[in-house]
């Protein structure tokens, strides 16, 4: 019987787990260069891992903040007094979650092969080019003058386009779709995202209205009593 402390130490010093993690993380580099082959093996051959996927996702969120903070002010001007970096990060994280959930919900209806976990892992792997390009790009921007901003914008947009193409191939491979079906699936996913966002807003506004109702009821009672 191991003690709790022992188990924690084991968890963090598990050589085999680390090896698995780094191997699956390194596999992301293969995926972004060989998307069709890579995404197929990622889920069907279990070459990727949830840990590595989450690592890439968190790295992407941090990259977004890193870019805003450390790009030279000549290219991106951020009002640091007003900026909220949590909001900036949520601006990527929330669409990502809604995309994955909606996509999974749709593809279960249209005989997609991927599970929710598969879609999550593949989508996160598809974001790899973003931190990979934007972090060096941000550091490099500090050696550029205002006239040379094209380089900065080009590499940033390039990473986004690359990611977008990877997203498409990820959906295609995970669900074993044809290209046409993938496109239709993605369009419907966006429509579905809009529906989900609408329902969420409706839900929160109803909840807050209900809360306000009970609060005003409480106030009414309090005023009557005193």
């Amino acid at each position, binding site marked *: 019987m191991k003690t709790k402390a022992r188990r924690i130490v084991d968890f963090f010093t598990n050589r085999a787990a680390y090896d698995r993690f780094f191997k699956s993380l390194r596999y992301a580099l293969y995926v972004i260069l060989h998307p069709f082959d890579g995404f197929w093996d990622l889920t069907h051959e279990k070459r990727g891992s949830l840990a590595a996927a989450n690592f890439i996702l968190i790295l992407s969120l941090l990259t977004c903040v890193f870019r805003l903070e450390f790009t030279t*002010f*000549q290219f991106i*001007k951020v*009002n640091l007094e*007003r900026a909220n970096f949590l909001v900036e990060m949520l601006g990527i994280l929330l669409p990502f979650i809604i995309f994955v959930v909606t996509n999974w919900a749709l593809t279960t209806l249209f005989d997609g092969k991927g599970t929710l976990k598969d879609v999550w892992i593949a989508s996160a792997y598809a974001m790899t080019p973003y931190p990979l390009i934007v972090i060096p790009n941000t550091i490099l921007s500090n*050696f550029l*003058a*205002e*006239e040379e901003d094209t380089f900065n914008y080009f590499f940033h947009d390039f990473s986004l386009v690359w990611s977008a193409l990877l997203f498409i191939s990820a959906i295609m491979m995970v669900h074993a779709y044809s290209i046409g079906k993938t496109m239709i699936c993605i369009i419907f996913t966006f429509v579905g995202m809009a529906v989900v966002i609408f329902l969420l807003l409706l839900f929160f506004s109803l909840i807050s209205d209900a809360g306000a109702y009970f609060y005003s009821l409480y106030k009414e009672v309090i005023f009557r009593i005193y």
Partner: protein
Amino acid sequence: MKRLVVFMALVLVLAAVSPAVVSQADSGYSYNYDFWGEEIHAPNPYAVKKALTHVELGLDKKLSKAQGLFVKDNLIYICDTGNNRIIVLEYADEEYKVKEIIESFEGAEINTFSSPSDIFVTDEYYFIADTENNRILKLTKDLKFVMDFTKPDDINFDQSITFLPSKLIVDGAERVFCLVKRVNKGIVKYENDGKFNGFVGATPVTYDLFDYIWKTWIASDAQADAMSDFVPTEYDNIAVDHDGFMYVVTTNFYEGSLIDGSVDPVRKLNSLGNDILIQNGDWVVVGDINWNDQGVYTGSSRIIDVTALDDGTYFALDRTRGRIFGYDDQGNILCCFGGNGNKDGYFRMPTAIEHMGHDLLVLDSQDAQLTIFTPTYYGKKIFSAIYEYQQGRYDKSADEWREVLMVNGNNELAYKGIGRALLRQNKYEEAMDYFKIKYDDDNYGDAFQLYRKQWVEDHVVLIFIIILLVLVVPLLIGRIKKVRWEVKAYENESKKNS
């Protein structure tokens, strides 16, 4: 006990000193807009020198709906529109005195004015927009009628409207440029012999595709009539600067298009009628950026008059909040001050602004008074910094800007001005610091390029060494590894053989 006495003495000294400090800061609320469009409190660039009503001037009756104001040398001309007269003030020995009251003239059938709303004075003549008499008068200085400019008998001019000239300027060749009420084709131009010579500088017509489609195909005829027409807007006022360029302002625009720059409330026209106003500042020339709607004072600034000083700076008068906005020749905002109210330096219905040297004169039609502002120490320093820069004495200009910074550490132009001077002295790194504080990316980029070039030149040896190391070291390592591997292979081979 001794401590207490010292403390009391200190309190007394402070009490004696502090009223002076308070009274200096008291005379108004001035601010400026920073890069983010937020108001930053600033010292007063202008202080009230005099507020003149009919009492101070010794006139028989109050000014009534005064519309027009003109300054030539040390003479101030006020169009007392409601009383049908023109009051001439003379400024001498720090005093403003009535020199003359013009109520009638000789040599014409109707020899009085009816609602004169603007006046322009050249060396020899008066030009008066005699609105209700439907004419522009040209009088000699001893009030003899010379000629008048009436409704143009021309096919381009809509004959159905009454000719109501409201504002006018005159150029060096005595051609008259006039704004006529309900005429939206631009400025009416007369030759010096009184002949109508067409329109100049109508506002460009802007409409978006959606509006166009909606109006042409979807809306019914009645709805289309109710929608705004795609026609140029009418100008509200006109002024001329010392170079002869016309400044025109309009208050008819859609507020939502202000900040993106698709409407121009202030325009500077060249002789072809094209807008040549330079807008290189962080913000467009529209008056207030934040509207902060409060009570009855809502919406954007509505600039109703502009006066252009000799150094290229110009001051715009806002009808909505009674504020005065100063801009330099590049369109950078210099200062915002004034407001609606009853104190000196505040207005109720300002109608015209003029300048005498660096002093500003504002005519208020409802308060029936003329307010005269004069630059404070802070304002004077800004003007002299701009002046020195225009004269090409950049270092001197930077020194003036440093003094401005002593008074107001938030002044954007001061940082940029100092940065530019440092750049000229090849102090790139310091210049970059100054530009960076105020997000001036253009100048920062220039400074940075020079700094980078200098840095590379200074460190060229170091850079070569690093490149050499990066290239050579992996080669060496590869070589060593290869040799070792060969040695090992040889050893293995010989072991096997033996």
